[in-house]
């Protein structure tokens, strides 16, 4: 909750200085914070479900990452645009309806243009609705900030999510299937007997890589969860 009030204060400041640069220091921070210091997955530990489910291979992971960035950015900007009209008592339902609309849209487009990807991702595209990152940003940021700032915030959180799942998928596909984007990397370098690790194909592999990522990051930033 403290971050929410802080962000509201920042918004007030922004209103007082209408000539703020398009990419001022504060705005850069809005984008860069969720990439590392306040990463939705490794620090806030949100969106773990999909981070485990779709990261077996790089290609579906990339599709998922693009879909999530799209949904976060657009739901952020839509909610921010109508934030002064949304009745407070039903704001969660309104946010949910907007997210659900965007997710259904993404799912329909995938089905029409990338049917193979649609089959692989299946239910997980629909489950973006339940990805806590999206709703978390709407409630904590877009409801209280102007559209342009909300776009930046959405980009930051979206890419913060995207790069983590791409890193997880990189190791899972490399070690679990011996390939990257379905290109058999070990056969290409002449090591065709590379022992693939079945654990990496399982969700357990994702947990392990995610755990190691969180460990490395917290070791670097010195972040400790307060109780």
């Amino acid at each position, binding site marked *: 909750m403290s971050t929410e009030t802080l962000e509201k204060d920042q918004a007030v400041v922004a209103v007082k200085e209408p000539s703020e640069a398009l990419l001022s220091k504060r705005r850069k921070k809005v984008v860069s914070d969720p990439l590392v210091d306040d990463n939705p997955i490794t620090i806030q530990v949100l969106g773990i479900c999909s981070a485990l489910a779709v990261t*077996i291979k790089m290609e579906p992971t990339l599709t998922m990452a693009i879909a999530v960035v799209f949904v976060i950015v657009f739901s952020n900007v839509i909610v921010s645009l109508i934030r002064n*009209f949304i009745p407070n008592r*039903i704001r969660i339902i309104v946010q949910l309806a907007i997210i659900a609309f965007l997710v259904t*849209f993404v799912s329909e487009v995938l089905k029409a243009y990338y049917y193979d990807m649609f089959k692989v991702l299946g239910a997980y595209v629909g489950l973006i609705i339940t990805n806590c990152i999206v709703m978390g940003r709407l409630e904590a940021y877009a409801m209280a900030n102007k559209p342009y700032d909300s776009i930046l915030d959405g980009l930051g959180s979206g890419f913060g999510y995207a790069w983590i799942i791409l890193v997880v998928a990189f190791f899972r596909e490399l070690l679990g299937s011996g390939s990257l984007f379905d290109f058999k990397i070990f056969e290409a370098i002449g090591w065709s007997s590379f022992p693939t690790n079945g654990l990496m194909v*399982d969700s357990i592999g994702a947990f392990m890589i995610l755990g190691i990522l969180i460990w490395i990051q917290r070791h670097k930033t010195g972040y400790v969860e307060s109780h």
Partner: protein
Amino acid sequence: MQQSNTYIILFSIGLTIVIGGLLSVTSVVLKPLQDRQVELDTKRSILGAVMDVSSIKDPDQVLKVYSERINSYVVDYEGNRLITNAKGDSIVAEKVNVSKNSKLPAEERQYPVFQAMDNGNVDAYIFPMYGQGLWDWIAGFIALDGDLNTIKGVSFSHKTETPGLGARITDAEVQNRYIGKKIYSSSGNLESVEMIKGEKGLPLDDHHIDGLSGATMTGNGVNAMLLKYLRSYENFMSKVKSESGSGVAAI
């Protein structure tokens, strides 16, 4: 004012209309493209049972090869050709919903048959199948040689079998194990082909293939599906055999 019930109700109605309208438009606009993708996917799977389609990337090329190679029709449980349904509409083999049909009693189902043609001769008969894996549905196609006994190829798909275990039924390496196996015993009984428990890599007879280590339940699902559908097509197969045996062309 913004907190009044009237405002909330009006806002909700407005939001519903806008979002519902946008989604309807999306759905209508994308429907033809989606139908084409589904059609392409089905035809790819059918062709996949008799040839390697992964090398054909161009969708139009897939459709062209399909129309050249595949002759399709629908038969009933007795093996008779079905031209129209109860309402008088013509039945298209590619449009038959195999999963819905699998829930009907065997006698009432529609059975699509896809004939792969080669210079006017029947190269292969392809039958669709549908069954239960460990977690959810599995489906597939089995292609039989013109003798309706030797398996020419299979292609399986699944919804949520475990990657690395049950999901291996989609691997070419596993599907290739079926090639050359026989569905009839030498005495003419329908035996089907069974995936054994365990993965030993030992040579097996004509009616068994090596199993999937750690995925016996999925293997059982595949076995049950194969047996069920081969039995369902048995009447059709004996009919074709007797007709060709008596010198009358199968078609």
